[in-house]
């Protein structure tokens, strides 16, 4: 039996913020194929940075990003990677730029070479899947925060990625929308990695948790995720509930 290389792999990734001396992330190794992973950690520990490195938006000081066993070297390689991985930003306002919802959702498929008809069809179907039927002609800028988040998710899903990177998807969502998002994520075929401070949310959508501690990516103990309690994966570090 041939074992396939993992969909995404990080090898020895070290990254320092410009203008800082000590690295933010140090020799990070990680691989994932079809798992549902949660990523937690205090503010500023480098979670978003890690996603940006995976997507090729930031270049690490050292180390490699591999897609299906292939090292991503330049922008052209990362273009390929970006078809397979969908990145949902922390702030949906940064992600939506077309006048109407339909145009925004169809933007990705059009760039990937779909014909306008195909793109429209894919988009309508994606919106339907997220319970956003009838939103096609709405102006994105005028949607509520929760609606924007779901449309941003639609813009990514319409590119049919294999893995979703979601940066604090439940932020600023009211309880109903949050429940709806949990339902959606559970139903999706795609694997995902979710950054969140919302442990309940992670408990319902992920099968295991990672955290960044002392510049390292660490897998949390299995039981932590299954307790619905208020858990403190940061151990004795000063930590923060909420926000």
């Amino acid at each position: 039996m041939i074992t396939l290389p993992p969909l995404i792999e990080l090898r020895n990734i070290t990254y320092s913020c410009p203008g800082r001396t000590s690295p933010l992330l140090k020799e990070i190794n990680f691989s994932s194929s079809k798992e549902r992973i949660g990523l937690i950690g205090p503010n500023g520990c480098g979670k978003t940075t890690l996603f940006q490195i995976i997507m090729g938006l930031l270049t690490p000081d050292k180390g490699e990003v591999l897609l299906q066993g292939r090292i991503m070297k330049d922008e052209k390689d990362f273009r390929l990677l970006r078809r397979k991985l969908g990145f949902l930003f922390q702030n949906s306002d940064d992600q939506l730029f077309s006048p109407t919802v339909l145009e925004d959702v169809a933007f990705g498929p059009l760039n990937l070479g779909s014909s306008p008809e195909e793109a429209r069809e894919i988009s309508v179907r994606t919106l339907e899947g997220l319970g956003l039927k009838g939103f096609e002609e709405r102006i994105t800028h005028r949607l509520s925060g929760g609606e924007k988040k779901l449309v941003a998710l639609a813009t990514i899903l319409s590119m049919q990625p294999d893995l979703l990177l979601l940066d604090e998807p439940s932020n600023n969502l009211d309880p109903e929308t949050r429940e709806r998002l949990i339902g959606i994520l559970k139903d999706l075929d795609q694997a995902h990695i979710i950054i969140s401070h919302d442990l309940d949310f992670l408990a319902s959508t992920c099968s295991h948790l990672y955290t960044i501690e002392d510049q390292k990516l660490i897998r949390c103990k299995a039981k932590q995720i299954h307790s619905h309690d208020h858990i403190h994966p940061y151990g004795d570090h000063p930590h923060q509930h909420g926000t």
Partner: protein
Amino acid sequence: MIEEPFARGTTFFHRRDARVKLIPALAITLILALSSSFLVTGTGCILTGVLLTLSRPDPGLLLRRICSVNIFTLFLWFTLPLTYGGTKTLPFFFLDLSLDGIRVATLITLKTNGILFCFLALLATSTVASLGHGLEKLGMPRKLTFLLLFSYRQLFVIHQEYLRLQRAARLRGFIPANSLHTYRTYSHLFGMTLVKSWNRAERVHQAMVLRGFNGTLIPLNQPELRREDYLFLATILLISFLLAAIPFFC
């Protein structure tokens, strides 16, 4: 990212009040811009080059700046010798180059670079914030100063907003090309940035109103000029005067 890389520094030039840099910068620029003598522009270029060296700019950055400003000069070098006309010509392979054209192109190159050096040495060593206040002290209308300072403050926020949207487009497979799709996409990115700025203006205006703003802007006093400032002003003005006087001696 938009930055003011030359303003970061602690040399004698950086510590001077913006006013005593603005006045001589204007004087030198005027002299260089209006002169048609090689001696004046050449000497000016050397003098401003010395000033620039004294302000210790980052060499790599400096080189890039000089190149980008000289693109227009390069354009002149490609066109003027061929098109300027005049009686005297210089044979160059199978072309006849106009001597006058070459002369003019050289002169403009000297002027452009002299003025650039002067700018980098005297003005780029202050932040826009202090230059704005300096300009106001020197008589720029108050509304214009505030326009300058307010847009300066928001520039960075808006630029980052734009960059984040552009990044989102890139992540969705957008590759710029010569196509209507590309132009439409850029319009949408820019249009969204514009809408956000427009709405932000409302909120920033509210912030001003909340702090008691009612239509008159009261300036906060700026630091007094010091002895070194006057000395600096006098020295550079003297140099500019000598520069301007060169044609009368030769």
